[in-house]
């Protein structure tokens, strides 16, 4: 059935709640209204107010309460309205959710999912556009996932809900309605008319830790996730390059095998993400490639990322890694 990414995420919640009455969903505006992006629409009506409900505007409280619920033995799936709002909950995520199993010797565990819309491209300014994934990938005990299409969003979310450990589930909000390729002046193809919008209505999971090779080619390896998968595809096409384009889907656990095999084949690699560059996830990817593929590399690895500045409003398209910037860097990677 044709679905937007929002509908696929809503459908995943619905199936999870239908299958397991321990699954509870809450967050700001999540209950009666169904979420500001509608990802939880209709769930309160269907499953009742004790399984899908609104929360006070308090991210620390949402995650802290979810940690207690997970320790009790139910399965909280919580929404942080924008990833930019997650910081008050950071201590509960890092010192509590991620540490509980280890510090208690497995006595208490914390299976919970924290969903949050992430990334830019919507004129959201610095408080509705950030990509904080590296703040989570750096934390031992957390898994960090970012889908790039409705099919994966549903399968990965159901896998995250099944997972026995805390999972950070980042939803690129620019992709909610269709694959955005960085050409902000052109209309997007809606998911309803896209192959990746054809979502199986049955329950299925997409395993965490498996990347997807979205295009295959001998010229170079391009590693991306979220919105940048489509920007990378557009840029490679415009540069007339036949690249291996890897959609990571899951940052932790990381599918090193797919990355290493591809870079060993192409000998050239570009890494693309929206987040700021310094200590971004691209640095980790670059280090992994250097450690494992050094003697196969023909040219230095290049990172094409957001600038090391707060995310701007009016200057959004000069901040967002554009197809032009990607093409320019891809060409440098292709130099002899």
């Amino acid at each position, binding site marked *: 059935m044709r679905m937007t990414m929002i509908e696929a995420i809503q459908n995943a919640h619905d199936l999870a709640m239908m299958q397991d009455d321990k699954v509870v969903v809450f967050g700001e505006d999540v209950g009666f209204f169904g979420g500001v992006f509608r990802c939880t629409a209709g769930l309160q009506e269907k499953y009742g107010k004790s399984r899908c409900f609104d*929360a006070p505007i308090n991210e620390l409280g949402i995650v802290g309460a979810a940690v*207690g619920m997970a320790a*009790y033995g139910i399965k909280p799936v919580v929404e942080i309205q924008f990833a930019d709002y997650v910081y008050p909950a950071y201590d509960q995520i890092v010192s509590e959710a991620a540490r509980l199993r*280890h510090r208690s010797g*497995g*006595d*208490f565990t914390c299976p919970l999912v924290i969903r949050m819309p992430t990334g830019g491209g919507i004129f959201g300014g610095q408080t509705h556009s950030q990509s904080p994934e590296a703040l989570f990938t750096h934390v031992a*005990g957390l898994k960090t996932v970012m889908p790039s299409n409705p099919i994966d969003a549903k399968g990965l979310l159901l896998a995250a809900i099944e997972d026995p450990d805390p999972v950070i589930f980042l939803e690129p909000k620019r992709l909610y309605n269709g694959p955005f390729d960085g050409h902000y002046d052109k209309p997007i193809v809606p998911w309803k008319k896209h192959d990746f919008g054809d979502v199986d209505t049955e329950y299925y999971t997409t395993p965490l830790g498996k990347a997807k090779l979205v295009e295959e080619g001998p010229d170079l390896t391009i590693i991306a996730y979220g919105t940048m998968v489509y920007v990378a595809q557009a840029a490679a096409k415009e540069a007339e390059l036949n690249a291996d384009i890897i959609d990571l889907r899951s940052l932790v656990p990381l599918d090193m095998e797919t990355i290493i095999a591809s870079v060993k084949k192409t000998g050239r690699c570009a890494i693309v993400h929206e987040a700021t560059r310094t200590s971004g996830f691209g640095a980790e990817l670059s280090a992994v490639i250097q450690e494992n593929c050094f003697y196969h590399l023909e040219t230095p690895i290049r990172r094409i990322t957001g600038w090391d500045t707060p995310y701007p409003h009016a200057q959004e398209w000069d901040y967002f890694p554009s197809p032009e910037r990607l093409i320019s860097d891809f060409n440098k990677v292709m130099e002899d």
Partner: protein
Amino acid sequence: MVTEPLKLHVPEPGCRPGDEPDFSDFEIPKAGETRKPDLKDDADTMRDMAFSIVRVLTKDGEAVGPWLADLSPDKLKSGLIDMMKMRAFDSRMLAAQRMGKTSFYIQCLGEEAVACAAQTVLQQGDMNFPTYRQSGLLIASGYPMQTMMNQIYSNAADPNKGRQLPTMYSSKEYGFFSISGNLGTQFIQAVGWAMASAISGDTKIATAWIGDGATSVGDFHAAMVFASTYRAPVILNVVNNQWAISTFQGMARGNSATFAARGHGFGIPALRVDGNDYLAVYAVTKWAAERARSGHGPTLIEHVTYRAGGHSTSDDPSSYRAKGESTAWPLGDPIERLKKHLIFLGVWSEKRHTQAKAQVLSEVREAQKAAEAIGTLISGNAPSTRDIFEDVFETMPPNLIRQRKEAGY
């Protein structure tokens, strides 16, 4: 128009080293004087409770007033033994730390009644979310002292596998949530746990614990909002032991009102209790537990007590507290007060107390001997380094398997 330059107000305690200890402005109602509201009463009708102190034991050891609960002499004796055990345990473990057998220790000297009495109200399946000064919850629930010591020594039998600082216990079976060490985080988690119990149609309740200083953290306020919004079946305990390391309790509340009064803005019934009065702590906790279990929601309890020892083994309170402050503390010592009550009832004597003290000490020594036979932090037989790679996730991912091999395990 006033043009004086503004000055920052920084609250200060009444006395510091060099001063005479002074508790003259600490208002203490007489035992039996404070009323007992009905379980169903609205928070608004009992605002006075946040400015009084529930007390049951008189100076002479008599138990009086509306909060006098149905505790049999045997239960009272067992409460006394719990507190004595806790004190002997603390004293032995402090000494062990001084001898270098472990890195760190936190005692609860003077506060034994708070945790020991509260625990006896709880039922199998209820969950405490404690701080590091509620070891009495474990002692009073019959958790093996040797296992606590294994944790303190980080030896091979430590259930936490050497990963946590001494005293950061965890026992799901005994209703004792894993202690974080980060202040306040457990307060909102207790509320979440209680919400989960309600969501599941269960009958279990949670108890949250926090110190006076940590009520300043955001987690406290998050817990209050969530507890009041969802009417969570939780007991919210603030243990006001007067000191947060070197910071006096007035710093966390603008030196006005009380910690219990924090409940008023949230519509949460709130009261203060004499934390050194075993019978009062028991009665107030029982009242709060009954409220929670019967669907009336959260209760905020401020336990007024005194941290008679240092914050931890890394702390020397003589550099910031007036000499003799702990003996000048007007609510006395919880063990002495319960002992006096039992003698008043005619079921205890000085002689029996001395015998009990020796018996308790020998039990603690036996546990210590057994724990030390397994190992201490310095004697070897520590948990394997292999263990640090376990329990990061349920299933070890490939990168951790690689790193474990790199570390030689």
